[in-house]
């Protein structure tokens, strides 16, 4: 192009600066657009925050609650170590541990050396990987540690790090004898995990207690001196078993029911199905509301950006008259929409933060273990801003294209 047609100073950057100046100049109009955007977007964010916070969290907690992934045996069985080895090797099973006879698994606990409060508690076998403990305490190992239920800890007035004295009694030939062992409390699990009086110990300790009750000696604990230690083939009467996911429940259930042994088991399958149904209904209801809201939001914002370009017809024509190319002038409304989208979106996110804080603190008690009733992740904010920006740029670009297609003199003279 010849030298006389060059006007390379008409750059997008210069137009962008002019666009920003115009927004600052028309403070009221700009603020109205920013607040208008935030006014529509904020309730949507809160709605989505509540859906994500309450429903998703609630459902996830319910679905992921290890107690729903447990398969419990009804009555007694006979399981040897090979059975446990086989089960532990299965892909569907996340945790399996032998359980001793119920009657044998009850002991007395006392806080301190002697004279403290006494509690008769149920012992539950546990080991590393126990889904009930994983969030709260390190699993007990060996013969010297125990994880207490909150109720037991309250009763004994002990907490993590304290020692408790565990006593086991047995009656032989009409005579009561008693042995004991000191256990260090390595953690306390809340009532929501285990509501009864109970303590989690290693299967080794439980087996020792069972053996002692059965009349054997436990040399490593110096229990029942004078008796023989147990040396037969060991069978366990039960198990604690957790599958990996809810979908594995029926698979493992069928495995246990079948196989000739015909064990009876209890699962939470029905409750799980109800929760899932509830989740589906709520999700689709929410989706409908959200779709209408989002569509309305994007349309109203797009329309307000379109109106903004119409209002700027004369200024755009002046820019054309001064020699800005149409392709560069397009940046004027696009930059304005982008700035308004960013400010409005940012304001909406800020307002969402305040409102969600209010909601969360107001319902703090009710929320209990949940992290927040109303909350969103950074990715949700990113999606919000990107969608807003796309809507802004598209509507402004379409309006600007139309506005700059007309001859400059029309825009200058018709107003």
């Amino acid at each position, binding site marked *: 192009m010849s*030298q006389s047609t060059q006007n390379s*100073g008409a750059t997008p950057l210069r137009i962008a600066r002019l666009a920003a100046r115009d927004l*600052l*100049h028309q403070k009221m109009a700009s603020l109205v657009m920013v607040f208008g955007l935030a006014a529509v977007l904020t309730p949507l964010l809160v709605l989505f925050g509540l859906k994500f916070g309450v429903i998703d969290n609630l459902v996830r907690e319910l679905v992921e609650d290890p107690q729903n992934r447990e398969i419990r045996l009804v009555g007694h069985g006979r399981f040897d170590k090979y059975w446990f080895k086989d089960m532990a090797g299965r892909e569907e099973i996340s945790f399996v541990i032998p359980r001793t006879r119920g009657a044998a698994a009850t002991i007395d606990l006392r806080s301190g050396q002697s004279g403290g409060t006494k509690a008769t508690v149920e012992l539950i076998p546990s080991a590393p990987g126990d889904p009930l403990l994983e969030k709260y305490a390190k699993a007990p190992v060996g013969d010297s540690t125990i994880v207490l239920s909150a109720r037991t800890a309250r009763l004994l007035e002990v907490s993590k790090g304290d020692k408790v004295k565990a006593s086991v009694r047995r009656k032989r030939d009409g005579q009561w004898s008693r042995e004991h062992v000191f256990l260090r409390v390595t953690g306390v699990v809340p009532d929501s995990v285990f509501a009864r009086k109970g303590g989690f110990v290693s299967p080794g300790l439980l087996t020792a207690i069972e053996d002692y009750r059965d009349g054997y000696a436990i040399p490593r604990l110096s229990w029942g001196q004078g008796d023989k230690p147990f040396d037969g083939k060991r069978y366990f009467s039960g198990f604690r078993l957790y599958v990996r996911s809810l979908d594995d429940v029926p698979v493992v259930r069928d495995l246990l029911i079948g196989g000739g042994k015909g064990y009876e088991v209890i699962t939470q399958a029905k409750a799980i199905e109800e929760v899932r149904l509830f989740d589906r209904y709520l999700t689709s209801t929410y989706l409908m509301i959200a779709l209408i809201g989002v569509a309305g939001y994007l349309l109203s914002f797009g329309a307000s950006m379109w109106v903004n370009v119409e209002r700027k017809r004369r200024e755009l024509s002046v820019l054309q*008259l001064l020699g800005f*190319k149409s392709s560069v002038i397009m940046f004027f409304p696009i930059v304005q929409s982008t700035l308004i989208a960013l400010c409005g979106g940012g304001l909406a996110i800020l307002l969402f933060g305040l409102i969600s804080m209010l909601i969360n603190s107001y319902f703090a008690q009710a929320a209990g273990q949940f992290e927040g009733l109303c909350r969103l992740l950074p990715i949700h904010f990113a999606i919000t801003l990107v969608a807003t920006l796309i809507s802004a740029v598209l509507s402004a670009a379409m309006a600007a294209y139309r506005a700059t297609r007309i*001859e400059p*003199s029309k825009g200058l003279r018709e107003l």
Partner: protein
Amino acid sequence: MKAHTVFSLRNVKKTWAAPDEEFKLSIPHLEIKAGQQIAVQGQSGCGKSTLLDVLAMTLEPTSSEHFRFEPKKGSSADIRDAWANRRMDQLAGLRGRNIGYVLQTGGLLPFITVRENIELPRQLCRLPPKHTTQLLAERLKITDQLDKLPSDLSVGQRQRVAVARALSHEPTVVLADEPTASLDPHTAAEVMDLFVELVHLQGITLLLASHDWVRVDELGFTKLHHEQIEENGTLRSEYYS
């Protein structure tokens, strides 16, 4: 040295419809030499503004046989061809670099200061800052207004700013559409004198639409021939040199 032809038009027509009549602007033959000062006369509504818009390349002619623009000797551009092929960017470039346009009113960007308004065309042409703005402001007596927004100025002051903006990028052609029509007679005369003086100084080709015959005569402008013909309910306004 003989002056070259800046505008060269043959059989350029622009038709537009008003509610009850059809108007037609017709330019059978028009040649404007570099440095000429031309007065475009006629009643209001007879197509003066349309003629200037066509020459400023902001309005597309309905039909044209020949339309060339040669802002500097040897840099001739085919405007008919540019419109026909929708080369809007080429037209914008030609306009931005070579033409200054003073509208009847306004046309200033309301969101930047007077100084920025005046300097914008200069920046678009990437001309060095120099003292042009200051000199123009001094001549047009708007030095005190430079850092204000256009809305803070009187109508007369705004027209002075419009004149300064049309001249700041040292264009070869200035088009002015009744630049003083909205001013009181005294201010109008003052602004017009300053305008013409500046145009003289820079040796600019000027086309001025005006209905002030007396003033135009006094200033020694060349008048464009003008005829108004009514045929079959169509009002045809002809301009030719």
